[in-house]
């Protein structure tokens, strides 16, 4: 199997003979989905640390 670049120019790559809009929309949504999936646990962890530290600072009676 031989790997070769399928497009002659950046222009050709981005337009993809009229299909570029569909193809790059899909890849963009994929990137956004993975960004969300990666961020969710990080946000949760940050929120939790904040609440634990806030709870610890509260005066104990």
């Amino acid at each position: 199997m031989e790997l070769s670049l399928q497009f002659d120019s950046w222009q050709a790559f981005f337009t993809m003979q009229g299909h570029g809009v569909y193809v790059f929309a899909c890849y963009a949504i994929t990137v956004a989905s993975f960004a969300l999936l990666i961020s969710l646990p990080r946000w949760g962890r940050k929120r939790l640390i904040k609440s634990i530290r806030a709870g610890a600072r509260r005066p104990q009676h």
Partner: protein
Amino acid sequence: MNWQWFYQLGSPKWFYQKTHYWQHWLGAFALMMLVVGAIWGLAFTPMDYKQGNSFRIIYVHVPASAVSLAGFYIMALAGAAGLIWRVKLQYTVMSVAAPIGAILTFLSLVTGAIWGKPTWGTYWQWDARITFTTVQFFLYLGIIALQQAYRNQNTADRACAMLALVGTVNIPIIYKSVDWWYTLHQPATLKLTEKSSIAPEMAYPLIWMILAYYICYVWLLISHTNAASLRRERKSSWVQALFSDRNATKVT
């Protein structure tokens, strides 16, 4: 016989300590595989003679469908393990598998709709596979909603496990839908038992991407599970010790 190892498998603390450090490496590896696969599929794979360049969507669409389908089984199995052995960690895995699966199913539906426009001339059609995948999306959403609906965590977990187990009925229907109803969606391109209907130059990047999605899924499942474990066990001493101000310098 020593059964300690078995009970450790159900302990969120043990799981967190075992996975916390190397999960970042797994994540870096998964993302690298995704990037390589995307470049391969976008620029180095020959164009399809019938669909033109729009077929390049296959490399993000098919893996998302496959992983979201398998993710439902993983969620149901984790729920069943939780019901049988009454272990916390398995319930946590089940509860985080729902949002991950929902986002991946959504990704599969949206990329499929966009691919449908240049190929079939429509974004949506009441095709068997598309319809049952939408059902799967709502099942995932139902489990997320059910998880929030109960104040008692254990009740919520048990209810979700039941719904996940009942929902698995949908999985073989989605899987076989292209063979049972010959409506619009094309049959599977990759087959394990017979010759695939796809050229090897196009199949290798697809197999690569499916593998990359699976590795990424495992990583996401681990990181979401750990984040959820910390939240669920926030009152316990090990989580408090991890994040209290005294250890502030140790926390990364």
